[in-house]
């Protein structure tokens, strides 16, 4: 190889638990880990649709699993990570200004506030349109 050097390359050592050292890193890691639960839920929904297509018996089997104690706990955990994603996503959006007000990026609190308002409005809209009420 042309890029061969005489010295052994320096490889910086980093523990797999580096993020436990600081609360900020813990929040970062939890934020990133929310993606695992989002992906998991997407596949669970595909499974649910598959079961629903399979007819009443297949769907009742699915529901027995869906509302079992361990699954209820898992669903609650997925829900908690979904909420964490929403809140951290809005905070992150504030760091990436998409427009300017009088030449300056909009204040973070305004962006987060607007996102929270849209979140509430869309959630209510989904409850109204897809679930027929509040």
């Amino acid at each position, binding site marked *: 190889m042309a890029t061969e050097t005489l010295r052994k390359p320096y490889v910086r050592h980093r523990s*797999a638990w580096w993020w436990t050292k600081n609360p900020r890193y813990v929040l970062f890691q939890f934020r*990133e*880990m929310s*993606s*695992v639960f*989002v*992906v998991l*839920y*997407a*596949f669970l*929904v*595909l499974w*649910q*649709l*598959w079961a*629903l*297509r399979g*007819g*009443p018996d297949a*769907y*009742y089997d699915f*529901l027995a699993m*869906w*509302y079992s104690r361990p699954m*209820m706990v898992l*669903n*609650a955990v*997925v*829900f908690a990570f*979904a*909420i964490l*994603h*929403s809140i951290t*996503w*809005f905070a992150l959006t504030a760091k990436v200004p998409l427009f300017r007000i009088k030449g300056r990026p909009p204040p973070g609190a305004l962006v987060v506030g607007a*996102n929270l308002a*849209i*979140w509430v409005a*869309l*959630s209510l809209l*989904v*409850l*109204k*349109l*897809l*679930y*027929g*009420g509040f």
Partner: protein
Amino acid sequence: MAAPNVDRVPPMFWGLFSAGGFVVAFLLPVFIFMNSLAYGLHLVPWGTVEYGGALAWIHGDPARPLLGASLGWLGGWLPKLFLVLIVGGGLFHGLHRFKYILYDVGLHKVKKVLDPIMYGLAAAGTVAALLLAFSFP
């Protein structure tokens, strides 16, 4: 004229990550709440979650009276589009982010294998959601 060597593929996946991030942030919590938790918390009756109720939901029955005669046709589309958005947005957002977790634990060495697997999985899941959701009348 555009520069010839501009890489257009990674920005596209970052775009899907971002769009999916908004879909997940705005729509996933309310969906998990209604689809997974509401019945267990005794907030909705069994009739809305059992087979018949689930079929009525995906047919868009709850929306029809609200939409009226002129927009009633939308009722059947809304739940299906919603499901495709949730699954597709969730997968393109989540698998992109998960990819960087895997890079972080050392899999950056196998990028060339990992990237197609992650985005292939996201694309396959989105197509599956599309086919499954719209297979209902």
